[in-house]
C-alpha cells in the first residue's frame, strides 16, 4: 500500500528552517553564551537527519550533493589550519586573536579567530554525525 506522508513532510519543510536558524544562532553566540561549534554542528546535523527521516535518503542526497566524509575532513583541516596560521605570527600553536571592528551594518563588533576554529569543529561534527547515520541506515 502506498504510504502517504503529507503531514510529516509539510511540517518538516517548515520546521527544518527553524532548526537551521537555531543552529546558526548557537554557532554564532558561542563566544558569550551557551553554544558554539559542537552543539551548533549537532543541531545542524539533527535538521539533516529530520530531512532524511521525512523524505528519501536518495532525494535529499540529490538535493544536497555533499560527500559528508569530505565535510568532516574539511572541518578537521580548517581546525588544524587555524592553529598552523598562528605559527606564522610568531605566537604559539593555536593562539587566538580578538579585536573590535566597525562593520557597516552591525556597528562595533568583536571578531575572534576562534570562530574559524569553531567552524572547523562544526563541519567535522556535521560530517561525522551524518556519515554515521547514513551508514547505519543503509541495508547491506
Amino acid at each position, binding site marked *: *500500500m502506498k504510504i502517504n506522508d503529507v*503531514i*510529516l513532510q509539510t*511540517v518538516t519543510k*517548515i*520546521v527544518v528552517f*527553524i532548526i537551521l*536558524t*537555531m543552529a546558526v*544562532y548557537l554557532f554564532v553566540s558561542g563566544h558569550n553564551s551557551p553554544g558554539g561549534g559542537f552543539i551548533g554542528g549537532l543541531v545542524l546535523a539533527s535538521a539533516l537527519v529530520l530531512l532524511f527521516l521525512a523524505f528519501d535518503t536518495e532525494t535529499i542526497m540529490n538535493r544536497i550533493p555533499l560527500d559528508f566524509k569530505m565535510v568532516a575532513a574539511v572541518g578537521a583541516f580548517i581546525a588544524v589550519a587555524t592553529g598552523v596560521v598562528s605559527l606564522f605570527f610568531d605566537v604559539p600553536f593555536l593562539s587566538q586573536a580578538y579585536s573590535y571592528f566597525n562593520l557597516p551594518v552591525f556597528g562595533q563588533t568583536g571578531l575572534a579567530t576562534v570562530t574559524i576554529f569553531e567552524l572547523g569543529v562544526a563541519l567535522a561534527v556535521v560530517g561525522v554525525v551524518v556519515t554515521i547515520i547514513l551508514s547505519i541506515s543503509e541495508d547491506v
Partner: protein
Amino acid sequence: MIGELLIGLLVLFGAVVSALSAFGLVRLPDAYMRSHAATKSTTLGVLCILCGAFLYFMFSLEHVSAKLLLGIVFVFITAPVGGHLNGRAAHRTGVPLWKDSVRDDLSEAMRREQEKEKE
C-alpha cells in the same frame, strides 16, 4: 504586579494541565486515547509554562528572549505531529482499539485499498 500575577497563573495552569495529561496517560484504556491525552494537554501545558517564562524574563529581567518565542512556535508545530505519527504507527501495526469502540473507518478504508491493489 499584574505581570507577576499573570506569570504565576500561567505557570500554575501549565503545570496543572500537564499533571492532568499524566493522569490521562495512566487512566485511559487504549493507545489512541492515551495519545490524545498526552499530545493535546501536554502541548498546552508546555506552551503555558514557556509563555510564563517568557513573560518573567520580559518583566523582571527586561530581556526579550527570542529563543523562548522560537521554542513556543516549535513545540506548537511539532508536538501534534508527533502525536499523529504515534497514532498512525500504532494503527498501521494493528494495535487494537478500546473494546467498546463503535466504528473504525480507517481500517475499512485500508482494507478496501488492499483489495483494490490485489486486483
